[in-house]
């Protein structure tokens, strides 16, 4: 078993992500106010005892909105990367297992997708659909499966002719059995690592889109659209910009530390020591 204590950064990352997960789960219990409750008597209050992170331009409590915003971030990250990973595993497995023309076709598709600037692609799709949290998750998922595909294909190529796979095949295992019980479980670690790193970039993309007003729509709170308000009031209300930005930074940092640490733990050769 791996001695996890040798990877302090991974532990820090894990603790960060676990705490955010916990906060998101218990948000309704600890949020002091309704995140969407407008209060005209409390507009743009700086952080104080009753409003721990101040209030926004409509008098809504920023701390409560931040808590509910964390749910959006987590959900977008998990669902988008879930979609990307499933597509990536299927296409990568087909390409790496069957080779031949289907492999060429899939890999060319990957090249094409990589040559269109992703953010343009996402924005263009959103222009043709309506911006909503579901569309955002699907679009981010559909535009970020290329890395996983390449990864799974490479793993399959290197495992395909190992003895244990050949032995299973000689014993009469069908393709599906080879793929799902022999090849895939042995490729799981790099897939998990790349998914965790993928969540980090999905969180960044979602917050960017929401910041531009093309992501999660008001009144639903997301860290990105709290920052949009922050931009509006940047001259008088620093708290509106500071807290959501820090939250995004810490979350993304957490995923990156965890993903990087896991990679080092399972693949000591890539470790820098």
């Amino acid at each position, binding site marked *: 078993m791996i001695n996890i204590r040798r990877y302090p950064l991974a532990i820090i990352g894990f603790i960060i992500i676990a705490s955010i997960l916990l906060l998101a789960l218990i948000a309704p219990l600890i949020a002091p106010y309704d995140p969407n409750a407008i209060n005209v008597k409390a507009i743009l209050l700086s952080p104080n005892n009753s409003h721990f992170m101040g209030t926004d331009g409509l008098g809504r409590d920023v701390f409560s909105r931040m808590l509910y915003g964390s749910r959006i971030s987590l959900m977008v990250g998990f669902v988008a990367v879930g979609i990307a990973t499933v597509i990536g595993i299927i296409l990568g497995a087909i390409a790496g297992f069957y080779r031949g023309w289907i492999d060429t076709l899939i890999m060319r598709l990957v090249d094409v997708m990589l040559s269109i600037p992703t953010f*343009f692609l996402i924005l263009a799709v959103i222009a043709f659909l309506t911006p909503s949290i579901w569309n955002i998750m699907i679009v981010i998922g559909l535009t970020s499966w290329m890395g996983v595909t390449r990864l799974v294909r490479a793993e399959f190529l290197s495992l395909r002719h190992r003895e244990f796979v050949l032995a299973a095949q000689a014993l009469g295992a069908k393709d599906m059995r080879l793929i799902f019980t022999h090849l895939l479980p042995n490729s799981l670690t790099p897939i998990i690592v790349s998914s965790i790193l993928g969540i980090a970039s999905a969180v960044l993309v979602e917050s960017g889109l929401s910041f531009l007003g093309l992501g999660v729509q008001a009144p639903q709170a997301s860290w990105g659209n709290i920052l949009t308000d922050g931009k509006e009031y940047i001259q008088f209300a620093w708290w509106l910009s500071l807290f959501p930005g820090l939250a995004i930074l810490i979350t993304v940092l957490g995923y990156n530390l965890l993903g990087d640490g896991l990679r080092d733990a399972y693949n000591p050769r890539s470790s820098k020591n």
Partner: protein
Amino acid sequence: MLAYLLKRFLWMIPLLIGISLISFFIMHLAPGDITTSEASFNPKASEESRQKLRALYNLDKPVIVQYSLWVKRMATLDFGTSFASHQRPVFWQTKDKDGNITLGMIQEALPITLLINVLSLILIIIVALPLGVISALKQNQLADRSITLFVFIGFAIPGFWLALMLMYWTGVQHTWLPISGLESMGHENMSWLNQTCDTLKHLLLPVSISGLTGLAGISLFVRNGMLDVLHQDYITTARSKGLNETRVIYGHALRNALLPLITIFGLSIPGLIGGSVIAESIFAIPGMGKLFYDAVLMRDFPVIMGILTIGALLTMIGNLIADVAYAWADPRVRRGVIK
């Protein structure tokens, strides 16, 4: 080399076909056709503008005809005229019968975005190279640890948030730097030197922001590349034949560690172009990113499709240049020894 170039060029054909298919697919993504979906969330869309869309993309014709017409548009780079901006041509200038020239929207915006991206690439090279080399040479010492921390934060920091904070600090609190646009008031009346200074001042923040987000990755890349190379046999050979450490590191190690960087720069082009949307819309810079963002908000479909295609073509050209440069720099690639 010639054979390699030819192969590399031919390889762009399937890529182009793929790009045309994907952009065509996006146009037809909306339920029904884009004319009805536009109407569904834009009640003001008149019957006339719907007819215009229908005519532009030939939506009443069979799919295969629509596709071939779209390919023809792509091949001639004719993306029609904008819906939102008084019928301006999307890509390149046109001349009307009186000889008045109307500049194309992309034609005006593209040089600005290219300038910002080239400047931020230069910034990345100037800062990331030394950081990566120092980090590798002082492996696991304080310098390396602080640079690694910087890299992790650089990966995690949302560019638009950093932009907001810097804008507040340098533009609002201290008024050191202008925070929007490319030119101050009275720019036309300045001498060319002052004009250049003025534009550079306006570019400083956007270029730093778009450079900073790329910095982290490149310096990590240089570090790991250096570490790999430093353990190679030819470095041991160079040391054992008595070369001094400077020659070993800068003459032998760095040159080889930098080779893959060419590819990385090629690969970072779509990210830089895409990232310009946020930076340019925050700083109100009239480049491709801002143009695209405005087009998305107004659902100006001809502009959206034009920029999407031009962005993809630029990425392809960037990758082509990177590959050719790599083949030029590394004889193993052009002779097909390694891929």
